[in-house]
């Protein structure tokens, strides 16, 4: 057991999975000697060589297309997209192609590939280094999407992703990379895809969230506790498939649901969570299903004051908790 940051847990997991399985390779922009722009692959090229840690040309579609081709020919590639904002040229190879390999070949072929994508804002990234891109992937049958928010979950879910025989999109929130620390066991473990976790038990209200907003929600819950409101915080951890049972169980038990996300709310993860709660918990609710997110603007302004105004914060979440608790 040791205390690690999220990025340290990611790097250690890549290393241990590459040691464990010779078919695991890493490819992407600057993943070699540079060690990745966030240092997720730091040192891997020294241990595993350039055949397994492949610096690619600056071309996202081929990063994912090549990963897909290697995946159907015996390897378990881990493609790194440098920033989520740059994934759009590769959407065709992921949403269009990889997601349908098993289905479109009636199970003859499969694509055991992982795509790691640093996403999210609050890092002065402006319009093109701040985006949340989870919805398009989460909408797609045939893809798994995970979004770990803690070092422990980052290790367990990345290990699961690499060992899964289908494409898995691993969304790592950039702001959590060095901000969030936690204990990580030294031994090997995995976390199942599709399982949410109650990160803070409570009785008065359920917050459903993921990513950086987990940490902001936990802070808001502590502030609310001072005011006598006991908030339960559920970390989705997997965005496709959603853990419908965990969401419904908690919302039914507390009777109030607040969904918090950094992504813009229209047609989003919070829309789907709200629909699940509406369908499964209607008679147990004693307040409206409430969503908190940023305004419907292109995420997100570079200017520091506007960025802060755009991003949800612990204070904004506390205000939403207070308002919902008074209903």
């Amino acid at each position, binding site marked *: 057991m040791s205390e690690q940051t999220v990025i340290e847990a990611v790097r250690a997991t890549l290393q241990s999975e590459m040691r464990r399985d010779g078919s695991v390779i890493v490819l992407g922009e600057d993943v070699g000697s540079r060690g990745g722009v966030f240092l997720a692959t730091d040192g891997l090229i020294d241990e595993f060589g350039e055949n397994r840690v492949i610096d690619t040309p600056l071309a996202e579609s*081929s990063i994912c297309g090549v990963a*897909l081709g290697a*995946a159907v020919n015996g390897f378990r*590639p881990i493609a790194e997209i440098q920033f989520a904002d740059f994934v759009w040229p590769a959407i*065709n190879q992921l949403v*269009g192609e990889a997601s349908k390999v098993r289905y479109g070949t*009636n199970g003859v072929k*499969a694509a055991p590939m992982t795509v790691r994508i640093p996403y999210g804002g609050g890092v002065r990234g402006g319009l093109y280094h701040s985006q949340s891109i989870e919805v398009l992937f989460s909408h797609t049958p045939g893809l798994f999407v995970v979004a770990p928010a803690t070092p422990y979950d980052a290790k367990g879910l990345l290990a699961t992703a690499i060992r899964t025989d289908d494409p898995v999109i691993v969304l790592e929130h950039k702001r959590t990379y060095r901000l969030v620390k936690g204990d990580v066991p030294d031994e090997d473990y995995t976390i199942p895809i599709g399982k949410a976790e109650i990160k803070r038990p409570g009785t008065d209200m359920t917050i459903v969230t993921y990513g950086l907003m987990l940490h902001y929600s936990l802070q808001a819950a502590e502030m609310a506790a001072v005011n006598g409101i006991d908030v339960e915080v559920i970390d989705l951890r997997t965005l496709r498939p959603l853990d419908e049972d965990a969401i419904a169980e908690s919302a039914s038990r507390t009777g109030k649901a607040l969904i918090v996300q950094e992504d813009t709310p229209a047609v989003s993860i919070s829309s789907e969570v709200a629909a699940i709660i509406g369908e499964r918990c209607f008679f147990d609710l004693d307040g409206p299903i409430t969503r908190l997110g940023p305004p419907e603007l292109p995420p997100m302004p570079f200017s520091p004051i506007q960025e802060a105004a755009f991003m949800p914060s612990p204070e904004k979440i506390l205000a939403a908790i207070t308002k919902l608790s008074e209903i």
Partner: protein
Amino acid sequence: MSATANNPSNTTEQLSGARLLELYQTMVLSRYLDERVWLLNRQGKAAIAASAQGHEATQVACVEATDPSKDHYLIYYRQFAAMMALGTTPEEMLRGFLAKEDDPMSAARQFPLHGAHPRVDLFNFSNVIATQLPQAAGVALADKLKGSDAVTVVFFGDGASSQGDTHEAMNFAGVHKLPLIFFCENNRYAISVPIEKQMRVESVASRAVGYGFPGVLVDGTDVVAVHEVTKAAVDRARAGEGPTLIEASVERLLPHTTDDDHTRYRSAEDIAHMAERDPVKILSALLKRRDLLNDDSDAEIHAASKKRVNVATDTVDAEPYPSVDTMFDHVVDSVGGNF
């Protein structure tokens, strides 16, 4: 053929007269089946078809230069004759077009010629043009990392040459010196858009210089020539010398698909001219010049092909469609998740 396969310096002699005749038989059978599919479309039984008529020689000759026991083939929707050359039976082909339960490629989930072949490593994941090229680079990269001498052939049309994925794939393959053959069947039309509106340069093959590997232009109606250049590219790839771009000049004798009408955009002169480049007729004439075929034996081949296609049509027409419950199978590995 195997007796001379290790003698690449003498490639033009690798195709014996007997083997040429067998390739001709494959081409004729492909032609009859292709024509039948078009008729089945007009009968309302085949929802869509893209014909390989005019492309048969190049596809059959390319496959002949490879080793189906270990090589990989990433095809696109017009690879009808290539699939026949790789041993797909007429019944198997028709099950795809008629969307029947036992379609071996995708169990009728996808358009014909999409999915994965049950016996050779031939696949075609999607209808999106040129996506197979980066995937082929990944397949070839995997072989290189494994130390395998398998070769990957990726087929595409002139239309695909305009896509960004084509550039990305060729660039990646050049950098990594991959055992990969980029095989372009240039029929001069991307549906209706003629080649002069697709590119300023004279050939697709000329672009290979930008990626650091050879580009070869070949007459795609000439079985012997296509086999020769493909064999050289295969030998080069197996020897670890990297990719080759082959551009085979062919004719698309029919409209783009059964939903197209090429008289809307092709001149009568153009249509008449291309009929003179029918590869089945060209190979028939060559075989007759070499006394490997005469009018009687040619007629026998045609009659046998038609009979074979009739049998396959009757068989497959009577087969069932897949049941609704099977459409839920194979979305993801059942161990992995709970979609």
